[in-house]
């Protein structure tokens, strides 16, 4: 590990480093007096740097302006939606062929819950696309004024991960064509591991694109009216996230009540226990994302209060 204190400044936003960086390093020199900095003080400085980044993007802080609060809240909802996409894809995978495991007379409620989850997923994704298009004119101005240099690193990393994901997915599809249905669904351990690795790569690529979008939006100049629209769209996305989570839970409960064996992958009426590790993981991801989205909505709602104190 590189123990030079200057490296710690990387945790802070660039504007903060430009304003306080030198004096902060001078303070560390005074404090350390030639000694090394332990891992705990380093971790606390890193946490303070991240807190400063949150302040800068309007995610926390009472002093933030109404636009900064809308921006911070919208970015939180965007990050939450990335989590919802991961949970939603997990739900789709867990629910594959569920109707075949249920008697015709009992599958209606589960089907409605699943269809509502899919609908909420589509509506939320559509709203994210509309939000991105709303920012497009500002993005074009940003790139035209030399903004590419600020976001090149983040976008390049996301592109590289996506390219790797594309190649890995093609390889996995080619492999799957040479396997039977039972081998693809848990019968072949090596394929199972490869599937999980590709899924993890998908999560990494999605996270990098989300981080690139957040980095770009934080750097761009966007006017107040656009932030109002983005705030409204973000509230809509958070609503879709709540709907998706509720319908995923309803689907799990209903399938668990009428066909618990579906989650064990065993023959009908051979199991009465609806536990499912993948579904637990999917719902946990959705619930955490929902909490983040709720925080984002509260920041957007607090923009009205900020308007009163920062006219």
């Amino acid at each position, binding site marked *: 590990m590189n123990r030079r204190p200057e490296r710690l400044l990387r945790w802070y936003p660039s504007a903060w480093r430009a304003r306080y960086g030198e004096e902060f390093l*001078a*303070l560390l020199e005074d404090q350390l007096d030639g000694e090394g900095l332990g891992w705990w003080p380093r971790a*606390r400085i890193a946490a*303070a740097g991240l807190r*400063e980044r949150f302040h800068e993007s309007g995610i926390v802080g009472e002093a933030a302006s109404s636009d900064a609060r809308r921006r911070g809240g919208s970015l939180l909802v965007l990050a939450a939606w990335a989590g919802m996409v991961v949970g939603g894809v997990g739900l789709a995978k867990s629910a594959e062929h569920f109707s075949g495991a249920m008697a015709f007379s009992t599958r209606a409620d589960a089907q409605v819950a699943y269809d509502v989850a899919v609908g909420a997923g589509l509506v939320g994704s559509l709203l994210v696309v509309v939000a991105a298009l709303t920012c497009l004119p500002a993005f074009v101005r940003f790139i035209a004024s030399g903004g590419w240099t600020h976001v090149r690193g983040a976008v390049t990393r996301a592109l590289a991960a996506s390219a790797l994901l594309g190649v890995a997915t093609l390889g996995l599809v080619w492999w799957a064509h040479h396997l039977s249905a039972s081998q693809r669904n848990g019968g072949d351990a090596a394929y199972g591991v490869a599937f999980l690795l590709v899924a993890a790569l998908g999560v990494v690529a999605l996270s990098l694109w989300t981080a690139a979008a957040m980095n770009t939006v934080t750097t761009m100049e966007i006017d107040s009216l656009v932030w109002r629209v983005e705030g409204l769209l973000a509230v809509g996305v958070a609503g879709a996230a709540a709907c998706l989570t509720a319908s995923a839970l309803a689907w799990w409960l209903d399938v668990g009540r009428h066909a618990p064996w579906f989650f064990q992958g065993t023959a009908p009426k051979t199991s009465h226990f609806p536990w499912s590790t993948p579904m637990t993981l999917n719902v946990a991801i959705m619930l955490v994302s929902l909490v983040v989205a709720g925080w984002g909505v509260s920041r957007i709602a607090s923009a009205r209060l900020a308007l009163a104190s920062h006219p």
Partner: protein
Amino acid sequence: MVTNATRGLRRPNDPSLLLLTSLASGPKHGYALLKDVEGFAGVTLGPGTLYGALTRLEEQGLIEPVGSDERRQPYRLTASGAVALREVTSEMRRLARVGATRLRLAQVGP
């Protein structure tokens, strides 16, 4: 009275309040602030916490840097900072008085 300036300065161990109190005796740079706060409050602030609080106080206009070419940048209270510190300390004094009075009443009560 809680105003925008004094919001968040209500806990006696709040880093921002400790820094305002320290700067009330004159301008100081980061390391001098840490040592002073440690001396009068027994609180050891980390560098991240110190600069987080300095950043917020400067944003709110409660402190300002004193012109200096040194790397060790001193800060001083602004007029608003002095008003905010006066408001908070008088509120704390009032609470302390109420607490002490009630304790005395409880001691002589039934």
